[in-house]
């Protein structure tokens, strides 16, 4: 396991475990700060060469379509290389957006970190 040092408050913690990059996101994410999330997330993906992105959404009470677009972009990048994106600890408002966007079948959704790592 390797702890990484993110440079934005939106990502309070990140670490690599094998081919998985585990990233905790914190706060409300909308068009104001989703570009910051995108930059940090893709920097971490580039540095780690991870195939699986595991997102801890437990501290994200709200996100909008621009934040979702960042996750979808990561998903498209990783699936091209045979990888995946799994989200866990979804709060109701975030889950609702993912359902409206018809992403429940293409994104991995898990209850907790342990389940996310086995998906």
């Amino acid at each position, binding site marked *: 396991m390797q702890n990484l040092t993110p440079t934005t408050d939106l990502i309070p913690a990140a670490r690599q475990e094998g081919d998985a990059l585990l990233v905790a996101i914190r706060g*409300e994410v*909308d*068009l*104001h700060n989703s570009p910051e999330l995108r930059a940090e997330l893709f920097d971490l993906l580039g540095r780690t060469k991870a195939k699986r992105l595991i997102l801890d959404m437990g501290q994200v009470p*709200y996100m*909008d*379509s*621009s934040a*979702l*677009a960042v996750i*979808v*972009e990561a*998903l*498209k990048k990783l699936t091209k290389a045979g990888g995946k994106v799994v989200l866990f600890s979804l709060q*109701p*408002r975030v889950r*609702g*957006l993912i359902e*409206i*966007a*018809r*992403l429940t079948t*293409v994104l991995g959704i898990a209850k907790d970190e342990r389940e996310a790592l086995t998906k």
Partner: protein
Amino acid sequence: MTEAPRQLRLRVTSDPANLAPVRHEVESFARACGFDEAARGEIVLCVNEAMTNITRHAYDGATDQPIELSATFADDLLRITVRDWGAGRTPRPCDQSHDPLRPGGVGMLCLRELMDRITFTPQTDGMLLVMERKLE
């Protein structure tokens, strides 16, 4: 019992930094009107997506342009109007076969699915969006 406020009026710029404060104001208003947690989440999501679309499309990314939002509540109906002075293009109807992996379109999906009624009325100098949601 405290009577629900009848009207909320906000005038902000199209800067995305205003999204969170506007969401919080609308959420407080919707709470005072009696909407539950789930409904409030859907209402603020629609307001957020409407404003995001204005910044991105009506104002082509400009962050210093005006947006006026008003909300009224009467006869168990929440009516939210969002006015901009941008390009005045009516958004394309939602594609029911929305491809989740193609960028764009999620904001309009939210409005169509989470509001009881939405209308876009082009103005001579912009657009007026009205969103309605009944209290159930």
